[in-house]
């Protein structure tokens, strides 16, 4: 199935923890330029799917390919180098680093790796450092001048919504092909959610990234996504356009609960 359009493909991805099958034979096909959502009830295995793609877990079986190349068994940093960056459901910033430093760590792969350049701050290192700082300001600027003003603030002191923004800026630092957002609007009020929806669309437009997201708020998902996959008990029970998902009986059953379906 060679298809230039396909960026990320999961085929039959399964992961078990002890006796529990958290993800069960999931197939996903994310095409370049899409905003693709994974939805499903709590514990459906959505975050586990993210962890399987980004190399935090290794699939028990099945294959994950990026641009047609398998990335199974890659460590998280290699997955990032391959072009997949992510954020975390529970925001994992480096709390005792400043906002700027957080975004600089996100650009780690753009620095020279050899010790000599680093220790002696050789010209190639200094160039990388200057470029990374300029880029970090640019990335923060994407979220408005108020974020740029916060560059020297410790990450911990930020508001919740700002912390989410910094995490996205950090993830963008590596110029990813695929940006994976794990519940980007979790814990946000309506105004913040609306703003987040706006910037997710702008991300695709301004950075040309494909976006894979996990989202709980149906309104957000329906309005934003080109395509949606629904997980329940680790299995993909449906996939399609937002309108198809909205009317899919299996999905309604999964969400309304079995009792309601009887």
């Amino acid at each position, binding site marked *: 199935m060679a298809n230039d359009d396909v960026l990320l493909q999961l085929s039959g991805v399964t992961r078990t923890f002890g006796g529990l099958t958290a993800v069960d034979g999931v197939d996903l096909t994310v095409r370049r330029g899409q905003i693709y959502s994974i939805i499903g009830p709590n514990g459906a295995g959505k975050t586990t799917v993210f962890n399987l793609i980004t190399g935090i877990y290794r699939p028990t079986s099945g294959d994950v390919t990026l641009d047609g190349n398998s990335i199974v068994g890659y460590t998280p940093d290699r997955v990032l180098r391959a072009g997949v960056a992510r954020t975390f459901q529970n925001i994992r910033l480096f709390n005792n*680093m400043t906002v700027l430093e957080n975004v600089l760590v996100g650009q780690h792969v753009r620095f020279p790796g050899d010790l000599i350049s680093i*220790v002696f701050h050789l010209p190639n290192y200094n160039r990388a450092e200057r470029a990374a700082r300029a880029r970090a300001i640019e990335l923060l600027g994407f979220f408005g001048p108020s974020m740029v003003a916060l560059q020297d603030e*410790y990450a911990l*002191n930020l508001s919740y919504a700002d912390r989410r923004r910094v995490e996205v800026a950090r993830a963008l630092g590596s110029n990813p092909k695929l940006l994976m957002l794990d519940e980007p609007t979790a814990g946000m009020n309506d105004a913040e959610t609306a703003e987040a929806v706006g910037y997710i669309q702008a991300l695709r437009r301004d950075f040309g990234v494909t976006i894979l997201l996990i989202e709980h708020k149906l309104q957000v998902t329906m309005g934003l996504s080109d395509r949606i996959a629904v997980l329940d008990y680790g299995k993909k029970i449906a996939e399609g356009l937002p309108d198809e998902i909205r009317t899919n009986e299996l999905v309604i059953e999964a969400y309304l609960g079995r009792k309601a379906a009887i």
Partner: protein
Amino acid sequence: MSVRSGTRPEPAWRARLRALLRDTTLAGRPLEWYLSGWRLALILLVVMVIFPWLVGSTFVADAIAVGIYITLAVGLNIVVGYAGLLDLGYVAFFAIGSYAEATGTFGALQLNSVTGEVIHTPVLPFWPLLVIGALVAGIFGIVLGAPTLRLRGDYLAIVTLGFGEIVPILFNYFPFWFGNTGMSALPPADINLGGLTITFSDPLNRIPFYYVVLAVVALVILGSFSLRDSSLGRAWVAIREDETAAASSGVNLVRTKLLAFGLGATMGGLGGVLNGAYIGAISPNDFPFFVSITVLMMIVLGGIGSIWGVTLGAIILRFIDVDLLGRISQFVQANPVVNNPVSPLHFLSTVDFNQAKYLIYGIMLLLMILFRPQGIIPDVRRRRELKGIGAAVESTSAIGVLEREEAGAELAAVDTLDQTTYAGPGSDDIGRSGD
């Protein structure tokens, strides 16, 4: 950079000192201008360059002993302070450096096959060994670091402690290194400039060797600053704060941790080479576990992660060890009250305060942990971490733990799902957000 939360009003004496530094001017600049950044380093360097000419030869020897431990403390600080990996076997690299120097300058044991006589042939002089010893130690740092990468916290400490014990035992075991006797009367390091020979490890004139140590210490400190303020330094902090997030930001955990081990070990090896040349005799007994503990204490005392802090920690503890305790013993024993056989304090005349070294270290450490856990000159970030401002994800939050947690969470979630009732048709929330 502002530290908004967790700041206390500064004590009056410090405010006064700050005002004094700001208001006193020298050549049109306030004093504080001279005492910041590289200017402070330059002033310190100048002071240290003229130091041997200001003090007696005892203090020059003390300074060499201190300098060797500064090298060790700054090196271990990279592993413990920057990367947050608790290494209790750091003495291994000190031993490897020392043995590299001794093996090179003295030569390994050989037996004359005819007479059975013990012979040894020097291989290399001190100078190339300074580089080779450091590199060998650095390589062993990576070799010994590799199997510990999957460990953290207590387990890492225990395994590294084991390495620290094994290395001197190996040196003891092989006749090649003269076993328990070790090597003594190591040839001094010399530089031959035409007809003029400068002996660097002449016990009667320590000043030339003092400059060798000073140069090494200056380079090690400079290198340490450079590492801290680099992408690698940031990666170490990131790993310390949150391994998973660091890895997902492109930090190669294996490589980054091994670099910390390797660079720390390189500096330990440098200290070892200097030690071999300075002492002129080494044996496996010179490298007990307490060397590792002492270096670690220097770091904790001075301020974990802070270069000036650990330097000061090394100066204080090493000075107590090599100079102060001897002086106290002498002073007490010469005291007439103690000398008097009928005095109740007469028992003190038999006390050797050098024996109380670890007792004194222990008390200092205890007081420090109780009253100033961040160290004498704290590192800004470490101070935040200690005060729990960060409440950073605990350093044990490795991928393994995460895996268990999330597997547990998945189980719990499956459990609750059965009891979940739908929130109502008007709701657009699917369940609740995960945390």
